């Protein structure tokens, strides 16, 4: 019963992540790659994403400090982060990355700074929510994936 409740909580949390636009269909593609041979693949990929993305955001921050108004450089760094967001289905982060790149295209430094703050905020929120999700899954045990709410 306890396991069932935890599974339901995990499923509800995941549904909300899709409903609120934090995740998109690509996250389901990642989950589809998980199997008995790689039972923790999704969590491993997400963990890797947050490691990679933290590094990329540090690179962007340093570029913005050390190379003021070097929009090509800022854009190049953000392009990499955006690509990773696409890869795991981090939809809101992806949108804020796109906004940053648009501001680079417009050579709008203040706009870039605002967008970057939003990227960082979305990154933090998504990390927190996914950490909660995987914690629930771990507590629920291995039998979760019979149905995948939120995935088309």
């Amino acid at each position: 019963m306890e396991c069932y409740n935890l599974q339901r909580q995990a499923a509800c949390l995941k549904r909300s992540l899709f409903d609120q636009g934090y995740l998109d269909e690509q996250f389901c593609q990642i989950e589809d790659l998980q199997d008995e041979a790689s039972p923790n693949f999704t969590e491993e990929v997400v963990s890797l994403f947050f490691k990679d993305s933290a590094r990329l955001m540090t690179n962007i921050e340093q570029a913005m400090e050390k190379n003021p108004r070097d929009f090509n450089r800022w854009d190049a760094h953000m392009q990499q982060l955006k690509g990773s967001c696409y890869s795991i289905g981090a939809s809101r982060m992806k949108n804020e990355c796109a906004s940053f790149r648009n501001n680079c295209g417009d050579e709008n430094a203040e706009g870039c700074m605002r967008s970057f703050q939003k990227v960082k905020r979305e990154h933090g929120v998504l990390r927190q929510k996914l950490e909660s999700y995987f914690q629930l899954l771990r507590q629920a045990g291995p039998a979760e994936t019979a149905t995948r709410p939120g995935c088309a």
Partner: protein
Amino acid sequence: MASKMQGSATKALVVEDIKVDCVILLRMLQKLNCKTTVAHNGKEAVDLFLEGKTFDIVFFDKDMPLMTGPEAVTKIRSMGGTEVKMVGVSADFGGMEAFMHAGADMFVPKPMKLETLDSMLQEVISKKNMSV
């Protein structure tokens, strides 16, 4: 979704500097029964070819340190790597022109779908089986 040539698995090289993107593509390829190798930038990929390594298909990310994907494609083609299928992969649609101009066989936007990858590999297998 079998991807197997007569007698040997498809040999795929993934050229990607972003770990998460690399891990996802590797997992897809492994699910499709490919034997995989990784290069972390274009230069490492070129070095593998210089060492005499052969692959049936190579996936290149676009922007990488030391040597970009399109640069590596150009270099490998000029070294005589004309038979190997080369696929450019990027979240940036502007990458298509760079890759095709460099001599890639095709461009696929990120994120790649498993079905797309499977049909690409089926094509490689068919071509390889016909030449055996």
